[in-house]
């Protein structure tokens, strides 16, 4: 996998969430695409060994940003001031833009790709509403940051169990008025969106199965799909990470 050393322009930290901006003069990422990331210092060592996938959170005149939650070693190193980044070109199949009005349904850190999506929708004059669920478990600083960075979004700050997706979908009210749904959130939310969309409004879901090669070689990022009536595993890295809800064989 070809990784490029990039210049980090800015790091923001809000609680256990963080944002990183780097200069990128290569192919611009499309909404829903991801990049593979390694830390250069650790690049010669083997810990961590694999590169890690992150959605392109935003892209604006040659600056890519990634929004992430600090979970383990790579995300910790990413959030460190002095870490040097190696990133891949934008990878995978993102969201397909279609007629509006559409609803963006996101939750937790997974709202990340919806920022770039909103930018593209606006640019293409496609009407949309954004509904973002910020779990109670997420730090206030993150909720505040989201509110600021998704100004037109309707924020749902779940109080109790962050994974209760109904909370979100109900609060949104009648989704049938939309021509399409673009979702990226915790698994239960994606579940709910898929269940709702079956037979009603077509939805596109951004998945995040663990990856190794990110180029279709290892078959590690398996996503169960229906293909001509047969249930088989697609690869999130080349066939996704965004999939139409209706083809998912969950």
């Amino acid at each position, binding site marked *: 996998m070809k990784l490029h050393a990039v210049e980090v322009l800015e790091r923001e930290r809000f609680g256990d969430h963080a944002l990183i901006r780097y200069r990128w003069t290569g192919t611009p990422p499309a909404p829903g695409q991801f990049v593979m990331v390694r830390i250069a210092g650790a690049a010669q060592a*083997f810990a961590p060994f694999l590169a890690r996938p992150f959605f392109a959170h935003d892209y604006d005149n040659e600056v890519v940003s990634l929004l992430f939650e600090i979970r383990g070693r790579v995300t910790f190193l990413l959030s460190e001031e002095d870490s040097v980044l190696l990133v891949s070109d934008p990878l995978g199949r993102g969201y397909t833009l279609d007629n509006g009005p559409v609803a963006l349904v996101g939750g937790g850190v997974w709202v990340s790709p919806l920022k770039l999506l909103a930018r593209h929708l606006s640019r293409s004059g496609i009407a949309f509403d954004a509904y973002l669920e910020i779990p109670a478990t997420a730090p206030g600083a993150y909720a505040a940051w989201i509110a600021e960075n998704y100004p037109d979004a309707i924020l749902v700050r779940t109080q109790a169990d962050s994974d209760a997706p109904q909370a979100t979908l109900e609060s949104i009210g009648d989704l049938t008025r939309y021509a399409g749904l673009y979702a990226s959130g915790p698994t239960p939310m994606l579940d709910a969106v898929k269940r709702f969309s079956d037979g009603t409004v077509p939805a596109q879901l951004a998945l995040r199965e663990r990856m190794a090669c990110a180029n279709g070689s290892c*078959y590690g990022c398996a996503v169960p799909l229906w293909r001509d009536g047969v249930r088989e595993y697609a690869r999130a890295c080349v066939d996704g990470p965004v999939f139409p809800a209706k083809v998912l064989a969950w």
Partner: protein
Amino acid sequence: MVTHRAMSAGEGASVDLTIELCGIPLASPLIPAAGTLSKEGFGETKGIYGAMLPKTVTPRPRVGNPPPRIAEVSSGMVNSIGLQNPGLDRFLNNIDDYGVGLPLFVSIAADTVGEFAGMCERIAGEERVAAVELNLSCPNVEHGGLQFCAGPGAVREVVTACRGAFSEKPLFVKLTNEGVVGNAMAAEEAGADAVTLINTIPALVVNAHERQVLLRGGLSGPAIKPIALRAAYEVSRAVGVPVIGVGGVTSGIDIAEFMLAGAAAVQVGAGSFVWEPREMLEEFAAYLRENGLRARDLNIAMTEL
């Protein structure tokens, strides 16, 4: 560990990277390890790989295992893909996907000795295939699920059958580390033209916080390199056929280490997920230049202790 990767392709050009493997001339000793390079991942292959080696094919399509299929561990990864593949028919129909101007090696696996031989017979008629690699790290349903490389007897049986069905072209036999010397000798006796070693090593990943098995699969990557080097070393001294070394290669120095240990060619798997094979080959070329050696001389260039 990993050294000067930042070398230009030009510099690499001057040295002699060519080798001959079972009569097949290869432009470089580097070959993708089975299951670690698909057509979507090709990128540039010319001038890097000496041959193309797609993921193991089975007689019928296989859906593979449910996720999670991969986990990271210290200096490596564990995978449990379950040989997902389209099956021999679809593979042969789309075989031109792998026509990138390099000799094409085909890795096969099956449930029974008969099926193994049957696949060899079909592939024997396919002139676009230069050689077959038998992946014997799969369960033999006729022997209670014991792997085909469970022991010399099992190896001899399946290799003999395949040799009979595939007499015209080179037959490689891929083995796991367990019992590798005895199994390699059995493969040679049964007519194998080369042995490929090693396959991933059975491993387990536990998630202590969830109190669950995260993954039960095969370990690969730098963690197994010293084990794979040992296998290449011992086997190349126990058999007369060429050894194709594989396990934990991430750099050009690693390629050199395997060839010094006795490997005639080297495969790269997990390492290619993280680093560029082109850079590995450039580092390897630089190593040859510094030491005034040709790739094909390396496996006899070691000063014995």
